[in-house]
């Protein structure tokens, strides 16, 4: 058993629901107890879909346990077919139904449905949501994709976007336009808005754009093997990656690499003097492997940040993140335990977090600005406005999104200059943040009385004591760099065996770490 409060990913059948809900003309019959329908509201509320997810739950209850549940499953399948007349049916079990071993796959075969029934084996006690999505999409492709003639002009499939995907809707639009600028058409987008009939035509494309490896890599590999379709390896998030992506497509198709850059504002914004204060901002990245890897590059090469840590929650991408972390010279963090993420963030005391909804809350607790770069996300990250992450416009969106939570350059200087000012004191927080930053969790406690020295040791075997004057001085440092200053000073003191931190120690450490 594993004690869990927050989960980055849902169970695998939710992943399968993401695929089913993304598609049209497909129905998912899920052998599941009453209550599992809670997952519907992820789609109707967070993503604000205007229809119910195409999922029928058998909703068995305690009194049904025994032979009755198999019967329930069969009648649910038949009724779902009669009512919705889908082109294909997905059948599977949720975690509880997995335990009662009714074998939805076997049962659906005996029903004689006039449409393909695709059984899903999703090991709920070993794997998670992303696996469920990847596996469901793979099984759909494997069952439905047929050998077909290639289109006469060059086309690609966009594969991977699902329901409840972080910015999937707009990424599709952006990439479709980008391909069109190169004279490449889109054959099928899948699973997003695809029908089973569309899936059958996947083979007609010349290559595949694998948008999100988390949800479609297995299918991409299968299509490469079975239909000889190469798939793209670059994720076009950020300016550099988008250019690489275009070159990769040029290589696959033999067309000229053409990128329409008239709307690309991000490089100039980043180069303009107003952005100088972004230089060396220490950022920590966490999320799904794909977004973290892509954003790490943007952070370092396009924003001029210093990446001080990175990690992902999906172990499927652990190798990618480990390799990248090595290249960046940081420790990778592969975990699905948010407390571990929180500990690492506290330890690193970054100036900014790029993460998920969870990191946003960690940032709020620690008083560190945060921008969201990856699922899981809440309703505000399914915006009404156009906001892709990929391609040209994606780069513009990323620049705005990441800069917004940071204290603006001038404000940063004013805070340093007038740090004891009654209106501009550091506990007031940045003017545009709304709420007041709380610093307790950073280990910075208010001194009880100014005369008393407070033990503020957070690490190291030696007891380090902050002398009252030094502590007062520390409090004068703007809140957004104070955590780092405190940590640096303590490290500096520990390394030199200094047990008491004075104002001098503070400034010696500052000089030592100056950059």
């Amino acid at each position, binding site marked *: *058993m*594993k*004690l*869990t*409060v*927050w*989960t980055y*990913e*849902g*169970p695998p*059948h*939710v992943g399968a629901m993401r695929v089913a809900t993304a598609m049209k003309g497909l129905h998912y019959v899920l052998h599941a*107890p*009453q*209550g*599992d*329908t*809670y*997952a*519907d*509201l*992820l789609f*109707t*509320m967070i993503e*604000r*879909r*205007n*229809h*119910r997810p195409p999922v*029928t*739950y*058998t*909703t*068995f*209850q*305690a009194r*049904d*346990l025994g032979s009755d549940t198999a019967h329930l499953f069969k009648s*649910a399948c038949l*009724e779902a077919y009669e*009512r919705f007349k889908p082109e294909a049916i997905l059948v599977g079990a*949720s*975690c*509880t139904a997995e*335990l*009662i071993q009714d074998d939805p796959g076997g049962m659906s075969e005996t029903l004689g449905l006039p449409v393909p029934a695709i059984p899903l084996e999703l090991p*709920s*006690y*070993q794997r*998670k949501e992303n696996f469920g999505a990847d596996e469901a999409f793979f099984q759909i492709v494997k069952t439905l994709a047929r050998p077909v003639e290639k289109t006469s002009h060059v086309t690609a499939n966009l594969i991977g976007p699902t329901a409840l995907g972080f910015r999937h809707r707009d990424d599709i639009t952006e990439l479709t336009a980008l391909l069109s600028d190169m004279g490449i058409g889109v054959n099928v987008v899948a699973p997003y808005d695809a029908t089973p009939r569309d899936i059958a035509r996947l083979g007609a494309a010349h290559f595949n754009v694998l948008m999100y490896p988390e949800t479609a890599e297995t299918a991409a590999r299968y299509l490469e093997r079975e239909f000889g379709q190469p798939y793209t390896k670059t994720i076009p998030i950020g300016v550099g990656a988008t250019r690489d992506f275009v070159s990769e497509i040029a290589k696959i198709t033999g067309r000229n690499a053409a990128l329409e850059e008239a709307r690309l504002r991000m490089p100039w914004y980043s180069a303009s003097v107003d952005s100088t204060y972004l230089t060396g901002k220490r950022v920590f990245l966490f999320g799904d492997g794909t977004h973290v890897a892509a954003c790490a590059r943007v952070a370092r090469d396009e924003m001029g940040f210093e990446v001080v840590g990175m990690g992902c929650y999906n172990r499927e991408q652990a190798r990618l993140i480990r390799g990248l972390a090595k290249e960046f010279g940081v420790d990778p963090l592969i975990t699905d335990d948010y407390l571990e993420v929180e500990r690492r963030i506290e330890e690193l005391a970054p100036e900014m977090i790029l993460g998920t909804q*969870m990191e946003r*809350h960690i940032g*709020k*607790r620690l008083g560190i600005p945060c921008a969201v770069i990856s699922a899981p996300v*809440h309703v505000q990250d399914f915006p009404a406005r156009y906001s892709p992450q990929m391609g040209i416009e994606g780069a513009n969106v990323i620049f705005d999104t990441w800069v917004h939570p940071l204290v603006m350059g001038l404000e940063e200087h004013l805070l340093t200059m007038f740090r004891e000012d009654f209106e501009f004191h550091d506990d007031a927080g940045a003017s545009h943040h709304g709420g007041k930053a709380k610093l307790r969790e950073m280990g910075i406690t208010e001194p009880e009385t100014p005369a008393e020295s407070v033990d503020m040791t957070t690490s190291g075997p030696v007891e380090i004591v902050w002398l009252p004057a030094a502590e007062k001085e520390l409090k004068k440092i703007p809140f957004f760099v104070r955590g780092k200053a405190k940590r640096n000073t303590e490290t500096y003191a520990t390394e030199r065996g200094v047990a008491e931190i004075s104002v001098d120690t503070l400034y010696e450490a500052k000089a030592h770490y100056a950059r």
Partner: protein
Amino acid sequence: MTDRFAPPPSKGCSATPVLKERGQHEVFCGLTGIIWLHRKMQDAFFLVVGSRTCAHLLQSAAGVMIFAEPRFATAILEETDLAGLADAQVEIDRVVTELLERRPDIKQLFLVGSCPSEVIKLDLATAAERLSAQFAPSVRVLSYSGSGIETTFTQGEDACLAAMVPVLPKTDARELLLVGALPDVVEEQAVGLLEAMGIGPIRVLPAPGRDSEYGIGPNTVYALTQPFLTDTHEALQRRGARHLAAPFPFGEEGTTQWLWTIAREFGVSAEKFAEVTDAPRARARKAVSQASEALNGRSVFFFPDSQLEIPLARFLTRECGMQAVEVGAPFIHRAVMSPDMDLLAEGPVIAEGQDVDKQLDRCRTARPDLTVCGLGLANPLEAEGLTTKWAIELVFTPVHFYEQAGDLAGLFSRPVRRRDLLKLEAAE
């Protein structure tokens, strides 16, 4: 005391044949009760023994609250736990020990059963007994089931409270017990009104902490504040306590009748009752009539969710002038529900259980002015042009008793007013 009300209907819907359906249920399981119960019992921790799905459900239902060091968590079953049952008990001990070390402030721990733990027949009752002995006296460990195969949404609170009743000490004192987790502000109002009539001592279940618990015995009388507390009702009767049957305290009429039932039991005079209640009654009437303007003459359709549906339909039809088309409830307990059913005029379909697709068909045919339903159905129905009120808010918002009567009507009238206000189509 029922003057100034519309007379009770000549024929209530107690005798109406109930449409019993089974099929796909679009409802929450009992685990969701944890979300509000843990706020109410501040020394309690709720440990669900279940799967990742259970953890994901709590996270989805708890919304933003999950980040405020909540006093609930899930022990997620892993492959190895499914292999052999003996291990599972050892694992529970390990997880609980780890948890209690981290949270020494916890005085009551609930082991909450889920579908997976029930299906593999994991004996949580025995685990609770063993752990209670191990951690006594500082921590009491109880168990109940919040599984979807056994409980629907608010029934989770019922299962939890019913698990607490047997361990309360015995007493012969004549005490009034109010049963049901209410928001603090509402609970204080209820207790305040009753105390002003000279009634006491008053106890509440759940008590805010183990320290403030009391005894139960043959002289205990109790009133339910929530309709879904049927197992708790039966557990209390087994301890010899006596039920005061009343309509549930929604709206002015419900609150007055509920209070009057208790007042009569404690020999409060009609004059004293009027002295205490006249002013808040007048306030409630005024607030309801203002807030319910948009509802007058409109029709309402209830999908099953919380068992609050029948009392709320009674409030909406009798105090807000609405017409009920169908009132669906996940479960109807006659003894508990009959005072409300007697007041709800015959006419609407009374449905118990659900076959969601068939019920949706009935709803589309009826095209009610307002549909009360869960979040999985609300936006899809709005997209079809129906106005909806999502039901879960009725459990999470203070809605009981006089001062909230206007807010309660407001919860239903807001979506109707919004539908009238928005003009999103292009001008002709």
